[in-house]
């Protein structure tokens, strides 16, 4: 196993967690994890040995998520997840813990750009500078999305 494959193997669990922060349900999250692993293996030449592998992996997954989310929104604009409310389960969540499913649905109600900021910092524990690098946005933008996302979550979860 070479350096790349070692990095990928050890990053996969964290990528899977990040996917659960982004995706609407556990099934989508596992699809996203697999698709990201696939993309990374195909694009392995893009990674510079010595550079931050985790940041690259998060970026690959995030871009993939943006692509699939946009495609889905175009396809089924009629299905408005937000209207499902927090108490309704989604397919594929039967085996997810109730608490995790609940928090995932709360995340799912955030605008995409707040959700990705919150997932990277509050769930993945990235420093602000790292998260801003992954998302390719200035620190100030990252911070304001993070704050708005967390205020919205707090409102949902405490009400």
């Amino acid at each position, binding site marked *: 196993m070479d350096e790349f494959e070692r990095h990928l193997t*050890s990053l996969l669990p964290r990528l899977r967690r990040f996917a659960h922060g982004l995706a609407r349900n556990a099934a989508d999250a596992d699809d996203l994890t697999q698709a990201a692993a696939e993309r990374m293996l195909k694009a392995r030449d893009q990674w510079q040995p010595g550079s931050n592998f985790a940041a690259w992996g998060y970026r690959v997954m995030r871009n993939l998520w943006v692509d699939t989310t946009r495609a889905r929104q175009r396809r089924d604009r009629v299905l408005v997840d937000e209207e499902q409310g927090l108490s309704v389960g989604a397919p594929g969540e039967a085996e997810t813990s109730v608490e995790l499913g609940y*928090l995932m649905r709360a995340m799912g109600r955030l605008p995409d750009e707040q959700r990705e900021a919150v997932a990277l910092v509050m769930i993945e524990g990235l420093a602000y500078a790292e998260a801003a690098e992954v998302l390719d946005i200035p620190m100030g933008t990252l911070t304001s999305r993070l704050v708005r996302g967390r205020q919205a979550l707090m409102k949902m979860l405490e009400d």
Partner: protein
Amino acid sequence: MAETIDETRIIAWVDGELDDAAAARVAGAVAADPALAALAERHRRMKARFAAAFAPLADAPAPERPAAEVVSLAAARKARAAKAAAAPRPAPRRWMAPGAIAASLLVGVLVGHGYVGGGGAGGARDALALPAPTVAALDRQLSGDAGAVRVAMTFRDRDGSLCRGFTASGMASVACRADGGWRLRYAVPATTQGGDYRQAGGDAAQMAFIQSIIAGDPLDRAAETKARADRWGK
């Protein structure tokens, strides 16, 4: 002159983003203002709540045999390329399905478990070929039958192929019919090993994978018996 401590500042403090001097100023302000203290506490609690709920996802067992692991990926790729060049028969279509490469990452784990036969993924066989005893069990057993291989359910994927969710050698797996045989689509180390494995349930990640490819409901006993009589659609 004290700076104003807003919510952004509080959150940055909770996230450990402030340098010592700035953190001390926030700590001082929080100590002096119960409203700020309550706000900081709510943010800290929410962060801890997310951390606790999401942590188990990242605690999934990382493969413990790195040496056996993706050695086989490169070898399998080479073997497939050589085979394709030698005998240009149609490549297994399943191979490029989403998940196939991630599944191939796991092939090394399977080798480690003695799950893929002696030649391993580097041999002439396709990387996702199953060992003969597993194939025999998938051909013969109905869901819930006892044995070294335990089949939890049978279902059709969105392409109409029959698939079976099963556990063997501690791996929660999914195999589907393709090119007249069973092809491994997915495998993860089963969370519960050995005799305690729940026959009808299965591993959470495995179930999530099944949810992502299943079309309709799993086959009932009668439909499964008929599918077996039909040799699983050839």
